């Protein structure tokens, strides 16, 4: 047997071999570490926003009065409620009620998509763009970067939904579902801060 082949065998052995149950645990731990780190990116953007907002003299671009709060508020309510909905989905999964899980899971996805749609509509209607001074820049940077996370969340959710149709896949609880749901809560909390910074503090 050639060494190269042997290498391969050994490699697969490492990946699938000993102690795989441990690794499930590691993954959640690792994911939390990652999220903590990622939150610092948002914190940095927030800090930047606050510095600009308090220092820049012509903050709003010419002709812009301020931001409309009503629609974004509805959006916020929907996104924040989806955090509760996804929680119920998880509860159903724990009770091995797959259809209940799928229903609530799908509802979460719908609410997330509604949020994205609402944000797209808002973007279209705004009288300023990415390049309209630091206000325009930070506004689109923050909402856009967050929107990207919502989109990622919805995509992850659809993967998890699809995987729920593989028989017995979710029998022993599923890391992917738990991680996605954690991610979703994370995205929600970020949004609340963001909403307060951009829309409430004008």
């Amino acid at each position: 047997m050639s060494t190269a082949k042997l290498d391969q065998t050994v490699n697969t052995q490492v990946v699938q071999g000993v102690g795989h149950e441990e690794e499930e645990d590691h993954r959640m731990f690792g994911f939390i570490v990652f999220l903590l780190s990622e939150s610092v990116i948002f914190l940095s953007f927030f800090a930047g926003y606050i510095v600009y907002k308090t220092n820049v003299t012509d903050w709003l671009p010419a002709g812009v009065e301020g931001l409309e709060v009503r629609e974004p508020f509805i959006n916020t309510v929907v996104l924040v409620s989806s955090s509760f909905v996804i929680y119920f989905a998880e509860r159903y999964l724990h009770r091995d009620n797959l259809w209940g899980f799928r229903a609530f899971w799908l509802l979460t996805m719908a609410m997330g998509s509604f949020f994205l749609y609402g944000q797209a509509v808002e973007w279209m209607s705004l009288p300023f763009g990415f390049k309209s001074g630091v206000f325009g820049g930070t506004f689109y940077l923050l909402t856009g970067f967050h929107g990207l996370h919502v989109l990622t969340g919805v995509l992850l959710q659809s993967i998890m939904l699809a995987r729920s149709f593989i028989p017995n896949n979710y029998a022993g609880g599923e890391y992917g579902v738990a991680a996605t749901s954690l991610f979703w809560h994370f995205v929600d909390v970020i949004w609340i801060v963001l909403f307060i910074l951009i829309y409430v503090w004008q």
Partner: protein
Amino acid sequence: MSNASLEVTPPNLQPQPGAPDNWRRFFSFSTDHKVIGIQYIVIAFVFFLFGGLLAMIMRGELITPEADLVDRTVYNGLFTMHGTIMLFMWTFPMLNGLANYLVPLMIGARDMAFPRLNAAAFWLVPIFGVILTLSFFVPGGPSQSGWWAYPPVSLQNPTGNLINGQSLWLLAVALSGVSSIMGAVNIVTTIFRMRAPGMGWFKMPAFCWTVLSAQIIQLFGLPALTAGAVMLLLDLTVGTSFFEPSRGGDPILYQHFFWFYSHPAVYVIILPIFGIFSEVFPVYSRKPLFGYKIVVLSSLIITGLSGIVWVHHMFASGTPGWMRMLFMFTTMMISVPTGIKVFAWVATIWGGKLRLKTPMLFALGGLFMFLFAGITGIMLSSAPFDIHVNNTYFVVGHFHYVIYGAVVMGFYAAIYHWFPKMTGRMYYEGLGQLHFVLTFIGTNLNFLPMHPLGLQGMPRRVASYDPEFAFWNVLASLGGFLLGVSTLPFILNILSAWVRGEEAGDNPWRAIGLEWLVSSPPPHENFDEIPVVVSAPYGYGSNEPLVENNPTKELASEHS
């Protein structure tokens, strides 16, 4: 392929990561932490040579006052790429290499927590290395805005192309950040979750503590740099105005983003070196690490402090007085936990039975130069003095003393010390000592003259300078060339020892530590049986067993 085929293979035919006879695995997407470790170390060293080559051209330019050897734009590109390559392509990958190789062995794990993530993080390194190297060949040349990439200079883009040195630079730095975050998540998880039974936090080797502290810094620091880099990239390519003062932006905010990470980054680099010192001194003095607990805890204190000192790089940037004073005091506080370590090492060595093997020589030399650099660092942290020497060669002297004097010397110490473990072979002691002597003289000759230059007011990042600075610059250049020469005995030593050096045995230094209980090079998956740790890591002189079982039972019987 089935499990059966593995069982019939005699253990001594099992691939031993580290031995050159199956060198092909080093070019594969291997998930073995030992292979990945060596991959990191080798690629990092290649880039070290590249970055050093650029430095030697710079020293060639600086040997005369006029800008004569290379064009000014080329000189500016050279120091930008030199700094970037040395930090992002040499120190970080080198550290990840050592951490990858050593941490699982030292904590008694079979591999890292996420082997595939590990491999992916590694393979990003050559990718962004190539991007960075290729930026020499785009029109307009590589980035010429220094490794800080301060706007507005970094936004000027004289060629007007979308693909230019600066945007490639940003891309490479971003990828490096992604790779480092992946590595950090992996290492932190491994240390938290995969320590062998019995290995409580205070039975963990100091090196693992320092690696943990360093990786925590990566986790909270890098995202800030990423945020700043994203905004800079948008300014450069899309036309936003975050940092463009002519359109309402704030260039100083970028500096805060940059240094919020890049100051702690220097501790990412030095902390594992502290770890290496803490491993090497006990072995070659035959004494336990003095004050182990406080030494390892001081790493965490340094980690904490490192996040609240960054403005000391911006004392002259237009920083208000209260900020200057505040950050002056926080910076000075760093000398307390660092001093604890330094004194503990001296006490470790004191009264021991010293053996001046190559690793010990490098560690001692490194400690010597770290002390010097730390003292100039404290001087720099004093705002009124720093205002005079900021952006002069005094700063360049300070950080090369740490980064070459302590970090590179520390790396050499680590390579020599663990080389027998990694390869199963012994390096040549005579060549090693020659390497040490050349490096030690070269480093001091190169970087000591930079201090008087800086005090006299010679700015850094200049291709030409006033003639009164010529004398010290000639000395520095000679030292630089000597450092270039000093790498040759090292390369010769390592290559020839790897191929045909003497068999080293499992534990040539009679060192204590889990990695020394297994064969050299360690077998696949490291331990047959996960060791059960029963004593503290540095039991020199007290004759206690480190583990209660024999983690290499089967191998030991069938092997040798």
